[in-house]
């Protein structure tokens, strides 16, 4: 059972005793906020989908983007190499309320670590941000278009047969860009 966990960064800032500021700047602030987020995540057992809401965040600088977003993704396994053992109860992250100015700080940070994330737009649509190969992107779009399911169900949405689709879906799940369950592969959706 996947547990949904909305994480309001302003609340994490407040819990990190940085509540005077709605700006996510400096490494120290980033570390304090991430620590709060990790505590919140630890409180929830099993597989989790955490929604990080940037709606109320003013300034996001490179240091904070690295400490919060990149380090959170890395610590929860998004950057693990293919040969490394997968985490038993993975956490997935979706990002909401990212403005253009946030992305200016976030994209270079993700590229530096070879990471990517799923961002939800105001209309509920999803897009990938960061380092994504064209083939990964097209596979991810198949999962979104199909709404998820087993490999055969997802494959039926492809224009042409893909022999290696299962491997590609597993790779996307390891990057935390799709959710892998016993029933198959699913987009990061909270509703």
């Amino acid at each position, binding site marked *: 059972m996947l547990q949904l966990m909305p994480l309001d960064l302003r609340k994490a800032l407040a819990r990190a005793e940085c509540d005077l500021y709605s700006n996510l700047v400096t490494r120290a602030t980033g570390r304090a906020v991430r620590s709060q987020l990790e505590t919140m995540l630890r409180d929830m057992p099993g597989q989790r989908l955490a929604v990080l809401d940037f709606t109320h965040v003013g300034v996001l600088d490179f240091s904070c983007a690295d400490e919060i977003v990149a380090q959170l993704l890395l610590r929860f396994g998004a950057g693990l190499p293919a040969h490394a053992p997968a985490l038993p109860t993975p956490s997935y992250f979706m990002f909401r309320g990212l403005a253009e100015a946030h992305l*200016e700080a976030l994209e270079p940070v993700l590229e530096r670590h070879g990471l990517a994330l799923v961002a939800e737009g105001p209309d509920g649509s999803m897009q990938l941000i960061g380092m994504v190969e064209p083939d990964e992107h097209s596979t991810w779009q198949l999962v979104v278009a199909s709404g998820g399911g087993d490999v055969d169900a997802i494959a039926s949405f492809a224009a042409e047969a893909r022999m290696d689709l299962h491997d590609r879906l597993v790779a996307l799940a390891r990057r935390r860009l799709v959710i892998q369950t016993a029933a198959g592969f699913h987009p990061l959706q909270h509703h």
Partner: protein
Amino acid sequence: MTTILTVPPSLDDGTFESLLQQMAPLAADAKVLVDARHTRWASPYGLIGLLTLAQSRADTPQFIPPEDPNTASYWARSGFFRNAEKLYEMMRPVPRSRTGDSNYFLEITPIAKTEDVQHVVQHIQERSAAIMETLGFPPSGAIGFSVVLSESCQNIIEHADGPGWVAVQNYDWKKRLGRRVVVIAVTDCGIGFRQSLAPKRGSSDRWDDGAALESALSRGTSRFHDPGRGQGLAGIKRYVAKWGAKLTIRSGTARIGIIPAWDDELALIEHLPPFPGAQMQIIIPQAVAS
């Protein structure tokens, strides 16, 4: 014996070198008197440079403020005397001012801890509408400006191992550029780039202040092993390129820059008089209407 260091009539990043030239032959504990009597104008870099100069001395230096009352008043409103009184022995009375008296976008502000950077970003956000209007940038550009300021100040916290200063002001460069500019100046009296990055140098590499600055600015080298580090300066470079701005960083005996087409300075200047820490200046010109 006290050595008199004469502050030039116009004090900016270029003429500040003449002060350092005068100071270069002196021992660190030599008594100095900084004489600004005939100074009529100073940039944010010049003013916070004077504060850093005082911090670099083993003995408390003496200071004679500008004789011109308008200049002295302006320096007071910039926050200079408020901070200088803690570092210099003032040889004459100086005008009083309160925080918020000036037209500085950011008055001279000490940077020593993370909360100082938070405070600076918060303050600039409150003035962002005026700054964006000055620069002719869309309101959304305020975030990028704050990010540059935040990362510039964080270099002090993360790398300098010493306190620093920041100030932001705007000028009308009618003659020089035909446009307004916003100037960000950040200085510290810490260990400098060469010492900060020394653990990362290759054993066969040339290693001096120029090489350390090149390594940081051109290759994004950081003192930390974490690949996520070193992104601040890289990010500043991207904004500087996007805005057609000028970035210079002085450390030790060298100065490196990203020089836009509207300026003719050299990208790397070496063999300057020594000065501890790092001194950064970013000059952002008003956007040209397309």
